[in-house]
């Protein structure tokens, strides 16, 4: 089993430090994929995003998703950091880092982790824009997760 690091935190993350933590001092990693999800202003009116989460379950569920990724691909490291609280457009939301000998495994595992974070990790987004509304789950995310079955 590769080293797995999972953190759910209010503060921003340091992408460089997280990539280094996966790959530094190793000679067997040939590929690192770092995915950053960023708060995006879709309609030009988003002031802030409020991210609610289920403490305890969020970490546990991300851990289960990471374990599944580790079973499916020959990974040498997995890191997931997910933020909660109030975010503004341009702020980082989530970071996934995967390290492997080969790029295919690193790419696929990072895509897998993101697809399941979207559909299974207990986080909920509330948009503060022209009005205040809970973001609805997207069918496109369910279909993205389906492709790994």
């Amino acid at each position, binding site marked *: 089993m590769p080293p797995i690091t999972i953190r759910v935190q209010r503060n921003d993350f340091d992408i460089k430090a997280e990539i280094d933590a996966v790959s530094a001092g190793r000679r067997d990693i040939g590929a690192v994929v770092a995915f950053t999800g960023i708060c995006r202003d879709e309609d030009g009116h988003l002031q802030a995003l409020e991210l609610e989460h289920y403490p305890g*379950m969020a970490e*546990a569920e991300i851990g289960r998703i990471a374990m599944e990724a580790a079973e499916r691909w020959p990974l040498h490291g997995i890191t997931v950091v*997910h933020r909660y609280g109030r975010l503004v457009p341009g702020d980082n939301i989530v970071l996934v880092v995967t390290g492997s000998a080969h790029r295919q495994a690193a790419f696929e595992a990072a895509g897998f982790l993101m697809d399941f974070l979207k559909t299974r990790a*207990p986080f909920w987004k*509330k948009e503060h824009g022209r009005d205040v509304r*809970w973001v609805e*789950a997207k069918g496109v995310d369910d279909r993205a997760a389906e492709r790994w079955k």
Partner: protein
Amino acid sequence: MKLVYFAWVRERIGLTEEDVTLPETVATVDDLLVWLKTRGPEYEYALAEPSAIRVAIDHVHARRSAPLSGANEVALFPPMTGG
């Protein structure tokens, strides 16, 4: 048993959590949803569309048929929108 609520389920019920004693007839997640709706208009509003409600038992996603026996904490929330 402790119930915890998130996102618009929390807002509609008006509580973040509560302790409940289940009637003996409530054995599964499905039974719980049906019973909760009888507890007042805020529950009826929050749970009006049961297909939009996700449930976790002790931090693990649970199906509608999952038994509640032994559960310490049951969470109700809408479909997730993280990531």
